[in-house]
């Protein structure tokens, strides 16, 4: 099969076009409109055949490409027709505009790659939480000069972030995540983590992701493990972190991915 790449692999129509340009070894400064249009349409049709939901941006680009390609086939109109009702759109201008758009996008895509490298490097570095120096600290806020204080704007901004975070954590109504994380596998993950560190883990540290299905599967996995006595959960007082340790039944635990496939 020619196109093994899924539409999800692309960030949008420009990204897809850049992929095609690279694959076909086309010079980005001299894009053959007919060829790139055919290839692009091919891709879109393949996706439609697979009944994948194609975002409107991809269809808009398809329409633009087809319009450009068809205009290129038409002869250039005579000069005296210039002030007619239909203004003439020079397909060459459109081609140049698309080229510029692709070049602009490509350089930011490359910049994003560079940032990704920086991010990866930064994620390798860890620091301890700051030592609590409050015993020495001056807690008299009025001693802080006004210029050094937080402002109402800072506070509102903080609040806005809370609201955004809330909104962000709501599941997307348009996207259905079909990727199922088997409970058995998540049970194994939890057990592996406990065995590897061999120290009590906090309840929070088990939940690495905040998407709903992940939370539910992880929680069910913990319940199953408790039932099997493979783990024990402790909470020293109300609202304390729940700590998880290996239980007596831990040695008998051997889950396969499909052992709890519900």
């Amino acid at each position, binding site marked *: 099969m020619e196109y093994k790449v899924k539409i999800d692999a692309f960030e949008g129509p420009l990204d897809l076009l850049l992929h095609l340009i690279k694959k076909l070894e086309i010079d980005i400064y001299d894009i053959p409109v007919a060829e790139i249009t055919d290839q692009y349409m091919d891709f879109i049709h393949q996706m439609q055949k697979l009944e994948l939901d194609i975002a*409107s941006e991809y269809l808009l680009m398809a*329409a633009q490409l087809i319009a450009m390609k068809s205009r290129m086939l038409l002869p250039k109109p005579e000069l005296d027709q210039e002030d007619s009702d239909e203004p003439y759109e020079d397909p060459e201008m459109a081609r140049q505009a698309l080229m510029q758009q692709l070049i602009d996008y490509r350089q930011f895509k490359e910049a994003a790659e560079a940032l990704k490298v920086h991010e990866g490097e930064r994620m390798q570095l860890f620091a301890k939480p700051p030592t609590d120096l409050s015993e020495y600290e001056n*807690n008299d806020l009025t001693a802080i000069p006004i210029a050094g204080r937080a402002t109402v704007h800072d506070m509102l901004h903080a609040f806005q972030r*809370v609201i955004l975070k809330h909104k962000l954590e709501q599941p997307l109504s348009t996207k259905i995540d079909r990727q199922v994380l088997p409970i058995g596998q998540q049970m194994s993950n939890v057990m592996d983590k406990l065995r590897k560190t*061999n120290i009590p883990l906090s309840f929070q540290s088990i939940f690495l992701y905040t998407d709903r299905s992940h939370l539910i599967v992880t929680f069910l996995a913990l319940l199953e493990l408790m039932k099997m006595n493979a783990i024990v959960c402790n909470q020293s007082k109300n*609202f304390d972190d729940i700590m998880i340790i290996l239980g007596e039944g831990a040695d008998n635990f051997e889950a396969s991915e499909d052992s709890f496939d519900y």
Partner: protein
Amino acid sequence: MKQAKIRSIIEGLLYLTGEDGLTIDQISKVIPECSIQELSNQIEQMKMAYNQNESSGIMIVDMPNGFRLTTKPFMADYAEQFAVIPKTAPLSQAALETVAIIAYKQPVSRISIEEIRGVKSERALQTLMVKGLIKEVGRAEGSGRAILYGVTSLFLDYFGLHDLSELPPLVEMMKNQNEQMDAYDLFYDHYKETINELSE
């Protein structure tokens, strides 16, 4: 494993765990190829090295079954001098979020705050109490009788407000968000029109 490598791992872990410190067992789990005896030896030598190194402001001290890194005694004066420097951002993000929720929703319990923020907020509340920006204003009805919090007059003073009515209304903020949405919808509608035009 080379001696230098062992020491570097121990130093790194001691740094990360800070005041909590490490037990020798924990170190041994991370470097299983070393005997407990060898690890203890290395740590003893590291202790001496820190003590003798005049360029170093930190040292290793014993704790039950383990060790932790701390600043040398002479640092106390400097730590104090550092602590009293007025910080440019005296309220952390967590504290700002928490005090904003309290200002707009008071009287409000810790649990309500945590529901909104999605994270534990005990420490932020403590900080705000110590700084005098919030206070207990009562207890919730019901079994838990949870503490309810409100802002203080120092809060108004700190943020330069005469009274709470001067706080920007929340509706404004929401409206801005809606505006953003509207602008987006306009943009999107424009897209759809273009598609229709092109496909005609």
